[in-house]
Every structure is written in structure tokens, then in C-alpha cells.
């Protein structure tokens, strides 16, 4: 007649070491979790700090619009690129931003499948971070093409010219990888939001807010049948997004590894790009989480434990990145290949060696401080370390792209690269776009998943029948 209660109904007890901070502060109920997270959006007035941040970010965004407008008017000649360095800041920024996005997908998909419950309070804004980072990244392949209004030529569509894309090129693979990634990230994010938007709909007092959240929540009512399909779909989406975490940056690395430029043509690129992506992504998660938990008073939901765990992921991926760098050096030495060896010497001692030295400092030496627990558990120290890693990862892409291109096989075709103010304007501008979107997000959407936080409470578990009747 009736199936026996599921074995997973037993409460999951968290095993904490004596001095390990908890994932969720004490004293919370479903009601307080709901009130606290919805209050950030629905009750809290706009603060001066938020407005100040928004003005700065929005100004930078406008700088980007200006720079792109001028770019469309004049052409890519306003940038520092020239022959031989035909790929400059645009591709550096593209790879950097798309890498940052990876941590969001890792947190929301891989950590979900691995049942890492601590992810529940950071996954929603990390997914938003992914979405906005991919949006920033997506700008660059478009604007670097010279004739961005023809970017749709990259897609296979039956054109009147009878011309089709060339599918043996990694640049075409990239179109598919990045557009799939952007779409799946957006779907994952939005599906995750639906139950929380329904909570917003029911908690909002303002009739307009009620209506808008109602529209977005699609009439979600928390039916058991709906939840079952929802959980299935969510798990499947996580399973589908998991290979994307590994594949997107792999395909991005193919853009380089398939080419024959010394410094690009390396088999180590795919794993080392993916590790670097997660490294920079977790750095960005921390750069966002540390202010959010402080300014919105959610230190009991995004706890020191989250910071500590994220720092450990950063440390681990940072070591993989360090391994990648040492392997590049080892290949240069052990392959006996003249060009590889020259590439490495040029990187480390050539005219742009400052970038390489800074890169080693930012990505390898300084982050070793994360071995120290005090650094991992002190927010401002961790914030600084994360900013350093973000700078380091940007420099890594600069070294790979610009320094490799500047000196290849023929000394007669060597050159150099100097960024112009427009290069910097667009880089700063995408930072503005990113933070504008993030600041708007925390004001209008739940930045912490409410319904998943509820499941972390002991009271959310169904008690065994015997116990319930005692």
C-alpha cells in the first residue's frame, strides 16, 4: 500500500571539528531565514554605500559604452594591437572574464552533485556572478572582430551568400562553447530562482513588486509534484553543467593550443586553463562574498567556514596553476626545442618580463599565505589575497597572449605591444558592467538561496514515525 519512509529522511548531522566554524549561525528557523533574506531586497532602504558603489560602477559602464562607441566609429586601430601582436587586451579580457565565471558553475553544479551543503548560501550570487562575467566576456569576441556588426556570420545559418562556418577551427568551437555556457548558466540561475521569487511574491507589500515577482515566479506554489520534477530537472541541469565547467575553458585553451605559436602549442593548456579559471573564479566569489556578508549583515549565513572553504579551493587550484607554469618551464628545457626554450627565456627575462615576474608573485608566491588558517579566516586578508589572484590571473593571460605573440619564429617580424587608453577604458568598463549588474542583482533578487537554506535546518527533516509520536 505504502512505501516505507525514504532512508534519506534521517537528519544529516554535520560533523564539526572542535574549532571549525558552522555553515549556518545558530538560532535560525525557516521564518527567520526567509525574513532575513527577503528583507535585504524588500524592506531595506537604499543605502549611501550602495549608491556610491553603483555610481562608480555605472560611470565605468558608461566609459565602456563610450569606448565601444568610439571603437565602432574608428575601428580596432584605436587599440594597441598591431602585427605581430594582433590579439591584445580584448582576448586577454575575454579569457579572464570567462574564467571568472567558472567558479559559479562549479559551486552550483559540481558542489551540488558532491552534496557539499555549505554551497547553499553562496551558490545563487555565484551563479549571478557567472552570468555577468560571461556577459562581460561575450563583449570581446564581438568587438575584436573589426566588423562587429557581422558577428552573426560565426553562426551556421543559411545565408544568401551560400557560405558556412569552418568547423575545423577552434574559433568556431568557441562560439558554440561560449554560447552554450551562457545559455545554460542563465537557465540554471533562473530555474534556481523560481521558488525564491515565489517567496518574494508572497512577502512583498508593494503591489508592483508583488506583480513583478509573481510574473517571474510563473505561479510557483510549492506543490509536491512540482518540487519532485523541479529537483529532478535541477539535478540533471547540474549534471549537464558539470562537464561545461571543464569543457568551456578547455575549448578556450584550444584557441591557443591548436595554433603553432611557441608558448601556445602545449598539451598542458586545457587542464591548466580550467584550474586557472576556477582559481580566479573563487577569488571573485570571495571579492563579492566578503562585502556582501558584511554590508548586508548575513555573516551568520555566509560564515567564516565558507570563506575558509573557498580559500582552500583557491589554494588547491592555485597549486595546479603553479604546476602548469613549472611544466611549461620543464617542457622548454626537456623538449630540446629551440623555439620553446627561447619562448620561456623571453617570457622570464625578455622586455616584458615584468609581467611574468608579477604573475609569479601574484599567482604563486603571495597566495601561499592561504596555507595559514588566520589568513583564510580573516576577511580583509582573504579579500586582499583574492584581489591579488585576480590581478595575477589577468597577467597570466597577458603573458600567454601578448608576450608569446610579440616574439615568434622570425626575429625580423618581432614587435612589441603598448596598450592605449582605449584598451584600459574597455577593461575598466567591463569591471563597471560587472559590478553594476551585481549591485542591481543584490537589490532586486535573493542573493542567497532561501529554499535551499531552509533544507539545512534540522526542523526541515521529516522525523521517523516512531519518534514523532513520542
Amino acid at each position: 500500500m505504502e512505501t516505507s519512509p525514504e532512508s534519506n529522511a534521517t537528519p544529516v548531522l554535520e560533523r564539526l571539528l572542535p574549532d571549525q566554524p558552522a555553515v549556518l549561525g545558530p538560532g535560525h528557523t525557516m521564518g527567520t531565514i526567509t525574513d532575513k533574506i527577503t528583507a535585504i531586497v524588500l524592506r531595506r532602504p537604499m543605502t549611501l554605500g550602495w549608491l556610491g558603489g553603483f555610481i562608480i560602477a555605472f560611470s565605468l559602464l558608461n566609459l565602456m559604452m563610450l569606448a565601444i562607441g568610439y571603437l565602432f566609429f574608428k575601428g580596432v586601430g584605436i587599440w594597441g594591437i598591431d602585427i605581430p601582436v594582433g590579439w591584445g587586451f580584448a582576448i586577454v579580457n575575454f579569457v579572464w572574464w570567462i574564467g571568472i565565471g567558472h567558479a559559479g558553475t562549479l559551486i552550483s553544479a559540481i558542489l551540488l552533485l558532491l552534496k557539499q551543503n555549505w554551497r547553499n548560501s553562496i551558490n545563487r550570487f555565484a551563479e549571478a556572478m557567472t552570468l555577468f562575467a560571461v556577459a562581460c566576456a561575450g563583449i570581446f569576441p564581438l568587438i575584436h572582430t573589426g566588423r562587429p556588426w557581422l558577428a552573426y556570420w560565426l553562426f551556421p545559418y543559411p545565408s544568401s551568400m551560400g557560405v558556412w562556418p569552418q568547423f575545423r577551427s577552434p574559433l568556431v568551437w568557441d562560439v558554440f562553447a561560449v554560447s552554450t555556457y551562457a545559455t545554460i548558466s542563465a537557465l540554471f540561475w533562473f530555474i534556481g530562482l523560481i521558488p525564491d521569487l515565489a517567496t518574494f511574491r508572497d512577502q512583498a507589500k508593494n503591489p508592483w513588486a508583488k506583480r513583478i515577482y509573481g510574473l517571474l515566479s510563473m505561479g510557483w506554489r510549492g506543490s509536491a509534484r512540482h518540487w519532485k520534477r523541479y529537483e529532478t530537472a535541477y539535478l540533471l541541469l547540474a549534471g549537464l553543467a558539470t562537464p561545461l565547467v571543464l569543457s568551456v575553458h578547455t575549448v578556450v585553451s584550444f584557441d591557443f593550443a591548436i595554433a603553432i605559436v611557441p608558448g601556445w602549442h602545449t598539451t598542458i593548456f586545457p587542464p591548466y586553463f580550467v584550474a586557472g579559471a576556477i582559481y580566479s573564479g573563487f577569488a571573485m566569489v570571495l571579492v563579492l562574498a566578503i562585502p556582501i556578508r558584511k554590508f548586508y549583515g548575513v555573516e551568520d549565513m555566509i560564515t567564516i567556514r565558507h570563506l575558509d572553504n573557498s580559500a582552500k579551493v583557491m589554494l588547491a587550484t592555485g597549486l595546479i596553476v603553479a604546476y602548469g607554469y613549472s611544466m611549461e618551464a620543464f617542457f622548454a628545457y626537456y623538449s630540446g626545442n629551440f623555439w620553446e626554450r627561447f619562448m620561456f627565456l623571453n617570457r622570464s627575462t625578455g622586455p616584458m618580463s615584468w609581467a611574468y615576474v608579477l604573475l609569479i608573485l601574484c599567482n604563486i608566491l603571495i597566495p601561499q599565505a592561504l596555507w595559514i588558517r588566520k589568513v583564510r579566516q580573516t576577511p580583509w586578508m582573504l579579500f586582499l589575497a583574492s584581489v591579488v589572484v585576480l590581478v595575477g590571473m589577468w597577467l597570466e593571460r597577458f603573458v600567454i597572449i601578448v608576450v608569446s605573440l610579440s616574439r615568434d619564429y622570425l626575429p625580423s617580424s618581432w614587435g612589441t605591444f603598448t596598450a592605449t587608453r582605449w584598451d584600459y577604458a574597455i577593461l575598466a568598463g567591463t569591471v563597471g558592467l560587472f559590478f553594476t549588474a551585481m549591485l542591481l542583482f543584490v537589490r532586486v533578487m535573493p542573493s542567497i538561496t532561501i529554499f535551499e537554506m531552509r533544507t539545512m535546518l534540522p526542523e526541515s527533516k521529516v522525523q521517523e514515525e516512531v519518534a514523532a509520536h513520542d
Partner: protein
Amino acid sequence: MTEAPLYGLMAEFDNPTDLVQACKASYAAGYRRMDAYSPYPLEEAADAIGFHKTRVPLVVLCGGLLGGTFAYLLQYWINVISYPLNIGGRPLHSWPAFIVPTFELTILFAGIAAVVGMLGLNGLPQPYHPVFNNPRFSAATKDRFFLCIEAADPQFDRIQTQRFMESFNPRDVSEVAD
């Protein structure tokens, strides 16, 4: 007082255990047209009302197969039949190069199928539903648990069912207008 058409009776609980027990008892009593509502996924509740299987995975599988097949055939048709190009002397049908877009479109179609399939099978978006007529129901997205037995159930009886639901010791049993 003229009676508005009745959608069903709704019992409110403040913990998941009571809800699941009420669901089990109602299912055992022979009720089938009912639904449980909770503020977070409660698999036990779906099992208790006799909802064990979803067709979402099948939809996702179909989506993935469709995407992968479409991508591979598209590339084959473009690069071998419609617009053959000699790239470094590689064969026209250089399948290893076609794997990446095939993989990506498999994921893309499967992901879209997961979302569209889940929403479609759930009948969402659905702006109106009778359960929202119960003013207490707004707590279903916060910290309350509801069981609604629909009037359309053949066993439903306005008085008997209410008495039956009150035996679970809910916080409240109320009518839901259609």
C-alpha cells in the same frame, strides 16, 4: 449564503512530519486527487501522495540526443556536402573536429529540454491557481506546509473529509474556493 464552487479543503501544518503523515493517511484512506505544498523540496511528501516517477529525465535524454544528432549531421552536411573546404589537406569528414560542437549542442539541447520539460510537465507558467484563494497559503513559500484534498476526488465529501482532515491535528482546515 450562496456557495461558491469549491476547489477543495486545505489543512495547514507547521512541520514537515505532520504533513507527510497526513499525506500518507489520506492516500491510505483512498484519496488520490490531492497535493502537498511545502516551502522547500520534500521528497517524502511526493512519495506519500503516490507521485513516484517523473518523465523529466526522458525529456532531457530526448533533448540531448536530438541536439547531438543535429549538431553532427549539420557539420557533416556543411563541411562535406554543401560547402567543402580543403583545410590543410584534412579529410572533409574530419570527425574529431566535429566532436566539440556536437558535445556543446548536446548539453545545450538537453539543458533547454530540462527547463522546458520541467516547466511544461508542471503546467507552469500558470498565473492563476485556486490554492492561492486561501489567504493563509502565502506562508507555503515561507514556513508552513499544506495538504489540499480536491473536491474533484470521488471520495470527497464536504463534511466527512473535513472531519478526516481535522483528525491530523492541523493548525487550520479551510475551504478553497475554485
